[in-house]
């Protein structure tokens, strides 16, 4: 199946930069036919026996698709879709953001009805829904052919539990945002290594003890996971469908992470603070933090929340241990089709169009403000060279695209990452303070996650 579909995939993707969606769907249908015969998935028959032309034509038949997403302004991209396929009606519902949506999705899937056809799911939560077989394995619909359309860091994250459970929508390759004005005042240059970050912290502290080089959020497991990932960590490992391992205690990347941040916490050059609330925005606006290490989605958010910061901020590659490029994904999400979808062919075709059609991905980027997961834009010189008025005179997309290429491979999330992240604040969050024992907290976190995994029936190594 792999050989066949990858040929189809390559044929499809080589040219698809200029292809219309109809052709993309046709390619999908082709590869569906190619792999349908030897697919071992226990997916329902609709997937396997679907007539290729039926899938290709799914969007030309009247259909109703319910799509759960909390992304603001995504209705604009959906409107483009409906204009193109007037017979398909997409009901866009915002049931809540991130965890709120997963709670509802979980409940509806458990109840057996009430779930949407298509749902927005962040990468970290995808394995949980995939491993419990609550999502459609898109490989049964030929999605393997999409592989080359997406950044490998994005594609690897939808490739879980032996299937393809989502179409990548956006990514968040981590970069370093810094306050030019703050650094200029100190006569400092943007740090390239973690040692330089620590150095900068001391300078800032000496100038004004109320300011910090950056912050750590005791409630944000995603931040810690990304920073561990960025240091080369692979603390979560999943093998097969029922076996997993948590190695936070012994993971070299996690150890580097602790060695980087522990001393900065001790020096009080890094502040422990919850983020994304009013107070934090005030601090960001006031220049309290010289650096912000965040995904490439940050510019859209900054423009909305810190309009007065235009021109103050600039973008640089992530600092690393040795100064060589290295990054990680921070956030980002995919679009998945649920097992309860009534019209699976149309749902898959919609999810595919939304995230890979040239018109759609441009809209996602410019109308919605998402940082792309698709090579169509990541490899596009016009995109990379675009000016962002918020960062005058720089080419931030170029930096982001570089970071996207530098994302360290082979990271995995646990099939119960949502729970693991929820108890982050009980463990690591408790030691985000001067003198806090980061390695000790890594062990505690590991123990609690491992216990949970065993209770859920996993073989925990």
């Amino acid at each position, binding site marked *: 199946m792999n050989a066949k579909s990858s040929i189809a995939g390559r044929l499809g993707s080589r040219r698809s930069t200029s292809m219309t969606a109809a052709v993309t769907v046709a390619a999908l249908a082709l590869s569906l036919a190619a792999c349908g015969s030897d697919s071992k998935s226990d997916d329902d028959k609709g997937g396997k026996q679907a007539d290729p032309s039926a899938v290709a034509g799914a969007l030309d038949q009247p259909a109703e698709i319910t799509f759960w997403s909390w992304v603001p302004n995504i209705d604009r991209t959906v409107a483009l879709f409906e204009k193109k396929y007037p017979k398909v009606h997409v009901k866009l519902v*915002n049931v809540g*953001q*991130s965890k709120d949506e997963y709670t509802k999705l979980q409940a509806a899937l*458990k109840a057996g009805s*009430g779930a949407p056809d298509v749902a927005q799911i962040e990468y970290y939560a995808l394995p949980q829904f995939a491993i419990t077989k609550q999502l459609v394995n898109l490989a049964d619909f030929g999605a393997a052919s999409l592989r080359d359309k997406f950044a490998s860091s994005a594609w690897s994250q939808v490739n879980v539990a032996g299937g393809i459970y989502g179409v990548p929508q956006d990514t968040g390759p981590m970069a370093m945002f810094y306050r030019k004005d703050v650094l200029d005042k100190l006569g400092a240059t943007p740090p390239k290594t973690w040692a330089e970050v620590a150095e900068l912290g001391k300078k800032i502290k000496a100038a004004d003890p109320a300011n910090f080089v950056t912050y750590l959020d005791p409630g944000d497991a995603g931040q810690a996971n990304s920073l561990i990932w960025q240091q080369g960590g692979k603390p979560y490992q999943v093998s097969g469908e029922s076996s997993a391992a948590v190695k936070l205690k012994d993971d070299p990347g996690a150890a580097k992470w602790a060695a980087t941040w522990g001393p900065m916490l001790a020096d009080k050059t890094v502040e422990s603070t919850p983020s994304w609330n009013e107070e934090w925005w*005030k601090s960001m606006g006031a220049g309290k933090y010289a650096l912000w290490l965040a995904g490439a989605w940050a510019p859209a*958010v900054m423009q909305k929340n810190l309009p007065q910061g235009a021109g103050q901020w600039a973008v640089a590659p992530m600092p690393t241990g040795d100064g060589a490029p290295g990054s990680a994904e921070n*956030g980002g999400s995919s679009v998945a089709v649920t097992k309860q979808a009534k019209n699976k062919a149309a749902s898959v075709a919609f999810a595919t169009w939304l995230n890979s059609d040239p018109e759609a991905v441009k809209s996602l980027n410019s109308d919605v403000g998402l940082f792309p997961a698709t090579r169509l834009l990541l490899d596009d010189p016009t995109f990379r060279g675009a000016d962002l008025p918020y960062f005058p005179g720089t080419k931030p997309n170029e930096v982001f695209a570089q970071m996207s290429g530098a994302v360290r491979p082979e990271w995995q999330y646990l099939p119960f990452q949502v729970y693991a992240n929820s108890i982050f604040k009980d463990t690591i969050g408790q030691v985000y303070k001067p003198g806090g024992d980061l390695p000790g907290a890594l062990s505690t976190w590991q123990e609690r996650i491992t216990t949970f995994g065993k209770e859920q029936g996993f073989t925990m190594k």
Partner: protein
Amino acid sequence: MSTSTLPDRPSAAGDASSRFFRPRGRRPHRGRGGSGKSGGRRDRRDRRDRKSTALTVAMALMLGYTLLPLVWLMFGVTKSNEGLLSSRGLWFADDFNLFDNIHDVFTYEDGIYLRWFANNLLYSVVGAGGAAMIATLGGYALAKFEFAGRRLMFALVLGAISIPGTALAVPTYLLFSDVGIVNTPWAVILPSLASPFGLYLMRVYAADAVPDAMLEAARMDGAGELRIFFTISLRLLAPGFVTVLLFALVATWNNYFLPLIVLNDPNWFPLTVGLNRWNGQANGGSVAGSTAIYPILLTGSLLAIVPLIVAFLFLQRFWQSGLSAGGVKQ
């Protein structure tokens, strides 16, 4: 403060209004019942109207405490997002943005706030009105009819109050999902119709407010039980009914946990759930979501509070007389 799957479950030290209705031994003052403004009471007031400045100042401090957050909120709603971030909490920002904020509240996300408001009205009127009526019928039955199993019923109902709302949320969701009413107004209204607390209140209240002799006399005259209830008893139960209604109204208006679980479609959200979703958006937490909507959130919160305060002020005469009437029966 409790999760209150059921609107009338007591929360915090709250919902103890029943204590008024608790008969406490002898009741020598039957003659004064009803209005709560008894003649003797007024005399006592007049006799002791030496005003104390020290006491007034002490109480003013307490009033300051209870009003502080509301004053803060009122300043907050006059500010733009930038103003909120840059100004003092208890004073105006440089710009005066109140009208823009109100406009934004009603137009944000295609004006869904109005829809939420209407939903709240629906849930409160049907839920609280129904709950008060059903509790009145049930309380009357418990107090005035010796029917089999009533003691058991009453004990079960009271015991059920102590089970946390979170325990019931998931089972309620799964059950309602089987019946197919998840994500419909019924999922919110049906559970809020059961008010164990209102039942308790009305049982105690009805025991005293409706004299057995009067019922016997009516029956002698050959009146049917339904007619007796609607023409005689209901009128006597009115103050208790209004009080139960108001407290049920607060409970349904502020109901949060159950709608959060059983509703998916924002078009059916009540205000509390909708506002908290905006709060989630304001506080980001996730990738692409953040929007500068603090002013909208604050203004929406204030507008959500106003109707209840108005209802309490407007109905003050009724519910205070209800409380006092209950109070007489001690």
